[in-house]
């Protein structure tokens, strides 16, 4: 009986070879190559940060982070981000509004100029401020005469950070607001809402996730910036060392636990940024 009533062979979904499918061995090879590459280059570094930071145990980790120089570095990093992120956020909103809601000559040039800091090497971003405010710089003599310190002091760090994080918010908002168009805002305005009310009640709710993402990226870069800040800071322990610079100083002094304890905070910040990014993408249903 069994031999006669052969059930019609059911094709499982995977057994059907689509024209766009690659052979199984190709798929497996490519997936393994990708995964090993990612494991090696992305996961291994994170694992190493954790293992090195805790190499001498919890107490050593805690001590490394609570010693005065580390604390000062953390405070300075937070301060720099606290000043630069709001300023660049206001700029991002203003520039996105001007660029996406109005037509004017030189618009594409303006958009290119806003992106400019991205294509400048971080070291050069620091050098330009030394050339402006350093002892031999443009305003050097004037600053010395008035006893104002910019380079090798906090203002220089803030300025360099401001420069490198300049485009982040604007570049998230401009494409989104371009895509959205201005019909909703025009409707609100024609119904008698003021410009400010329209922005708060109509525009802001539409762009809030992209805005949040831009702020997040801006903050991550502000706290993690190394090259530009390293040029202007002078690496004075407890005074002008930001957290990334503290990591560098500690590493160069072979203080591995201190270096990687600092690095673990910065890596944690990166992870939080990535997780929030995935969350915001899911929330928005599109790639940011």
């Amino acid at each position, binding site marked *: 009986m069994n031999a006669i009533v052969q059930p019609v062979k059911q094709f499982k979904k995977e057994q059907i070879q689509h024209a766009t499918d690659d052979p199984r061995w190709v798929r497996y090879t*490519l997936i393994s190559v990708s995964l090993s590459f*990612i494991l090696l280059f992305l996961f291994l570094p994170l694992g190493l940060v954790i293992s090195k930071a805790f190499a001498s145990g919890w107490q050593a980790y805690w001590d490394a982070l609570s010693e005065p120089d580390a604390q000062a570095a953390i405070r300075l990093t937070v301060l720099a981000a606290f000043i630069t992120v709001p300023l660049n956020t206001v700029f991002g909103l203003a520039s996105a509004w001007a660029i996406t*809601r109005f037509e004017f000559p030189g618009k594409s040039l303006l958009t290119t100029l806003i992106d400019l800091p991205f294509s400048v090497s971080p070291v050069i971003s620091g050098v330009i401020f030394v050339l402006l405010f350093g002892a031999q710089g443009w305003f050097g003599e004037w600053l010395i005469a008035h006893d104002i310190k910019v380079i090798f002091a906090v203002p220089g760090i803030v300025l360099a950070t401001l420069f490198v994080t300049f485009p982040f918010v604007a570049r998230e908002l401009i494409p989104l607001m371009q895509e959205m168009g201005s019909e909703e805002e025009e409707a609100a305005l024609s119904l008698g809402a003021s410009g400010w009310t329209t922005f708060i009640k109509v525009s802001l709710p539409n762009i809030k996730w992209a805005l949040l993402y831009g702020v997040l990226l801006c903050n991550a870069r502000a706290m993690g910036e190394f090259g530009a800040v390293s040029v202007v800071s002078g690496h004075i322990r407890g005074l002008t060392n930001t957290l990334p610079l503290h990591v560098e100083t500690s590493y160069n002094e072979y203080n591995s636990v201190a270096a990687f304890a600092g690095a673990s905070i910065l890596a944690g910040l990166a992870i939080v940024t990535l997780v929030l990014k995935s969350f915001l993408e899911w929330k928005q249903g599109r790639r940011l």
Partner: protein
Amino acid sequence: MPGFGQTLGFTLFYLALVVLIPLSTLIFMSFKLSLSAYIDIITNTRVLAAFRVSFGAALVAAAIASFFGFIIAWVLVRYPFSGKKLVDAFIDLPFALPTAVAGIVMATIFQPSGFLGKLLIDGLGVQVAYRPLGIVVALIFISIPFVVRTVEPVLKEFDSAMEEAASSLGATRLQVFNKIILPNIFPSVLTGFALAFARGVGEYGSVIFIAGNQPYVSEIVPLLIITKLEQYEYEAATAIALTMLLVSFLLLLVINLLNRWMRQRSGQL
């Protein structure tokens, strides 16, 4: 629409204050130099060697990252596998991780006593850290997301009807890849390559820890600029920085052209 004057005014004012005026200092400062002095600085053997190291390493790293980045983008778009979401999120790690952290991690992994460094020395006799090869490795890490994130959307948009048509007409999978997929995806790979290269040339933080920073051998241009600045050789620092800046602008132009080509190819323009 209200607010044109205020928003554009603030935009221009802030842009000038934070970006344009500081950047133009570099150009004004270099006017102090005569052309022959500029050429003398730039053609100094140590400076030329640094340019060779920076450009060479960035070129090799961007090429390797383009190869693997393309495979990763392909796998992420075409094949289902578990943990894909996590992998996809982690591709951006080099964007989010501060460069100093990437730098000390790479140096620790690849130094002769490090986890992979030891393996490579014992197994292949290759030392990565404190050699130009170390710079390449650090730059591959930095470059990967540029390629993946440029190729991925183009691959997603790619109309597979063309593949089906080709294969129904009897093309093998390899022919389909070579004649249909590659020509359509290539502009995006090249754009990713250019973005990675531009970033790699100016990269500092992730490189200096693993590079060894030996003049003439493994000294990168950004480090040389800092060295000149620390020795109060402002003119040399200015001349080298200006050259780097001009190269970056040139690359930006190339990237914009590539971008146009890419969008034309995928029918978005």
